[in-house]
């Protein structure tokens, strides 16, 4: 009877010894979970500033010559196709007979909008913007002042440019 128990015990031990190496080898890999996401990103930057414009020349018999500031802007957005636009507005209207014109070259895939002078009301400047990441895209600001505007001492306006949903 005792011998039988010994035989059974030996059998169990032998089985464990045989199984052990294969159990060790089975653990030769491991996994890790990666959770990832990308948020909506909409970044717009006008390079430089403030921009100084002074109307100071004219040809006799004609309205004063407009002056132009040439600058650049940068844009990054991961929106869908044609999903964004850029609008512009001033913090208040320009004085009578003075005009600010703002023209931005569009990023690839988008379109510029021919516009009236910018005012305190928001206006579309560029539409149909796709996902893009471009730097140093050109823009111009023109200041026009008719003779009837008179002399204007140093003044300033705040131009707000917004990248928003179409």
């Amino acid at each position, binding site marked *: 009877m005792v011998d039988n128990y010994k035989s059974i015990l030996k059998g169990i031990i032998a089985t464990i010894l045989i199984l052990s190496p294969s159990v060790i080898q089975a653990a*030769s890999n491991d996994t890790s979970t990666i*959770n*990832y996401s990308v948020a909506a*990103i909409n970044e717009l930057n006008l390079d430089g500033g403030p921009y100084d414009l002074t109307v100071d020349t004219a040809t006799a018999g004609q309205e004063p010559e407009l002056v132009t500031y040439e600058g650049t802007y*940068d844009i990054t957005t991961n*929106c869908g196709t044609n999903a964004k636009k850029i609008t512009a507005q001033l913090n208040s209207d320009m004085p009578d007979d003075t005009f600010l014109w703002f023209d931005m070259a569009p990023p690839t895939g988008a379109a510029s909008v021919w516009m009236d002078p910018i005012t305190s009301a928001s206006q579309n400047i560029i539409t149909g913007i796709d996902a893009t990441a471009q730097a140093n895209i050109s823009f111009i600001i023109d200041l026009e002042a008719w003779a009837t505007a008179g002399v204007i001492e140093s003044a300033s306006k705040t131009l707000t440019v917004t990248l928003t949903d179409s």
Partner: protein
Amino acid sequence: MFMNKKIAVLASLLLLFTGTAFAAGNDTTTINYSVAAINEVNIDDDMETFRISTATAGVQPNAEVAAGSYDITTNGASNTKKLTAALNGAMPAGTALTMAVTAPTGGTSAGAVTLTALPQDVVTAIDGVAEADIAISYSFSATVAAGVIEETEKTIMVTLTES
């Protein structure tokens, strides 16, 4: 008195014989031993979370990076093992998940590897080694073309295998 001395002498002789009998006993036993192939790798970080949410206007969104570590024990011969890494599926277009695994002593790191669904070598020429907390560096990047992506899960499988 005389009897007592005889008893004492006999007792001493018995003790001596008994000791001699034990000392003369010997036996042998056989020790069978073996060491199985051992290959253990463990990524210490069960989960990493990346969320891209910032960019500088004019350039692609900022990549997210994370640091992790792993442990390894193998009794493989010199240069006989390597670590591979694979995802359970390909990343979406415009996104990339890279993994740079520092090699254990004697091994060679492949540097930053862009992970795909196919296993790629991240460390090669691994010798017998037992080291813990070896550095892993992860990076997740996305171009604007990838668009907005809600939280998604991928599984990285790291395998210690034959070179």
